[in-house]
């Protein structure tokens, strides 16, 4: 009996191994997966740990993720401590030495990103809320950074799979030109908000807003990771009135209650837009995601 089951497992393992021709890439977030899919084309199987509907800050290590990591040839993360609560337990449990930090199979795409909102090291304290010592990790929402990340992914894929290195570079270059092309439209659509102020829920829109010249006046969260308090909402309402703010921008996983309270007092418009691909049927890939954010902000 045991022998028979053993043979069955071996058989299944052999089936799994026959897919081995393709690179197996696992990304921590779905936007990274979307960019990797564009860069790799048919040459890799790409999957994301975080679905677009999950906040990557608060994921929990699970057997499912261990199973994904176990077979990965390349692990791509956002970095800057975004995945700090669950990444290492997943990698440790997967027993996959190829993807440990520092290995060729582990890519941190934040390495060459121009980081924003790096807290002053002399004043850094947990009292500041959920701040990241290396800066704000939500950089991929800026399409210019997506180009940079596509380049990094192409380079790493090329190192792991040298015979297709050129294809990866070409795909990344094509992605970059596509972004440049789309950027013209995004900029002109966003022109109406250029120089204007908005309120966001969490500090996850910083890079996007900077790219399009939008000023973030205040967040609904009093400090990153701390839900809105009545006292803080009073401040938000005052700021909205004083700066004549028209928009509150937030991700779908946050409740709109706090925003609604501000809207009732001030008439500000609540815009719910995803920051990750796959969380909305209209945000199927990275470019569609930016399209959707721009559309929601300007409709």
């Amino acid at each position, binding site marked *: 009996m045991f022998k028979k089951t053993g043979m069955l497992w071996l058989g299944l393992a052999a089936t799994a191994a026959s897919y081995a021709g393709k690179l197996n890439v696992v990304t921590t977030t779905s936007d990274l997966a979307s960019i990797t899919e564009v860069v790799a084309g048919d040459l890799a199987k790409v999957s994301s740990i975080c679905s677009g509907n999950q906040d990557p800050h*608060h994921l929990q290590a699970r*057997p499912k993720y261990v199973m994904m990591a176990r077979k990965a040839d390349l692990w791509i993360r956002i970095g800057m401590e975004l995945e700090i609560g669950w990444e290492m337990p997943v990698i*440790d449990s*997967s*027993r996959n030495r190829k993807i440990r930090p520092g290995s060729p199979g582990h890519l941190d795409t934040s390495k060459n990103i121009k980081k924003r909102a790096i807290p002053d090291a002399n004043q850094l304290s*947990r009292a500041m809320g959920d701040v990241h010592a290396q800066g704000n990790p939500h950089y991929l929402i800026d399409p210019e950074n997506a180009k940079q990340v596509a380049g990094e992914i192409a380079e790493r894929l090329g190192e792991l799979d040298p015979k297709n290195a050129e294809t990866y570079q070409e795909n990344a270059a094509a992605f970059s030109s596509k972004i440049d092309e789309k*950027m013209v439209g995004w900029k002109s659509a966003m022109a109406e908000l*250029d120089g204007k102020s908005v309120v966001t829920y969490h500090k996850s829109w910083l890079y996007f807003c*900077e790219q399009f010249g939008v000023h973030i006046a205040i967040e609904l969260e009093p400090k990153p990771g701390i839900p809105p308090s009545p006292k803080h909402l009073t401040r938000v309402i005052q700021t909205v009135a004083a700066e004549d703010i028209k928009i509150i921008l937030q991700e779908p996983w946050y409740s709109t209650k706090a925003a609604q309270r501000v809207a009732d007092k001030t008439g500000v418009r609540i815009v719910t837009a995803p920051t990750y691909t796959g969380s909305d049927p209209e945000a199927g890939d990275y470019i569609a995601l930016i399209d959707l954010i721009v559309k929601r902000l300007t409709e």
Partner: protein
Amino acid sequence: MKHLNSTAMVLAGTLLAINVSALEASNTPVPTHTDSTSALSAFNPAVSAIVDMYFYHEDSEEGLSHMKEEIAGFGGHGHDDEHDHDHGGKENGFNLNHIELTFSAEVDNYFKALANVAISEDGVEIEEAWAETTGLPWGFQAKAGKFFSNFGYINAQHAHAWDFSDQPLIYELSLGSHGLNDKGVQLSWLAPTPVYLLFGAEIFQGDNERMYVQEEADELPENDGPRLGVGWVKLAPFQFEKSELQLGLFGASGSHQEIHEEGGGTNYFDGVNWFAGADAVYKFDSGKAYGQGDAVVQAEYFYRNKDLDQEGGDEEVSGAQDGYYIQGTYGILPRWRTGLRWEQVGLTNEETEENVTEEFGKSWRASAMLDFRPSEFSQVRFQVSNGDYDLGDEGVENVWEAFVQLTFSIGAHGAHNF
């Protein structure tokens, strides 16, 4: 015209962006890999301290921790090993559980290591000190040192990670307040199956304050270590997007000694204690912010059996007890969770001595808790428990317990296993 306009806009935007970034660069120090603080911290171990304290009140006459030593079938031969800090010995009023200092880092290309030192008012104890391989092939992983056995679900968790302020009765009564925490080695294997299937084998020295005791007496043999073996398997059969179910089976067997002082005489016993059981955990991730809507249900069943022979005589002592708990927590509001726990011990509860088998009754406890996590680093918990404890000849006593627990952690951001 329109095209020209947008080109100008892009140009202006780019210039603005360059300007902004130039300003940004002049104000903010950008840490590089040569930056002394970040480079150093990369080589230093991650350090954290966890402080766990509580206000406790229970209404029994002789003290619940004393009563637990007397629970029919589970007590009687309690060996008060002088443990430096005892989670079980709760006093009415303020209690400082202990401070856990944790250091962890990659040792080199081959190992990662962790040391966890528990400091209490009574002294210092090494809770964990181990190294684990990071590069074994074919899904193997080996660990050596002092660590919590990974059998079942709750045993491997530190006290501050429990969803309730105290551990399940069956664990406390069978393995003591530390659970199964011992010196030894562990080898585990993640099978190359399409579902998550993890096998583990552990060999321990066999020092446990309750189930694996080696007495110091000339009449008893000195059994060489290692004296305890543990085996377990965990299976996560489904890969849902938002939830996960993990099932487990476990068993262990090791050497145990007892000294019985009865009727003026002293009898010495040496033999085998074994246990076996099953565990199940289900977790649901709602995807909402701050843990709202998240749910966890977990349950464990534990059966133990004792077989001892008299040294210098032909008496035998044997016994069997069991117990289970089932608990659930739910995120009722952002950052607030509530939980319920039901548990019973002694569904099987018998002890045979001098060919006379005694049957004992069962005990139960029900608990409700509410906790609030202002951030990932702090927690306030309120818990109320009520239970009936079967004390054998002294009858059954009902006891209420209440906790207000405060846990906070400073230092490195922790990462938790499933």
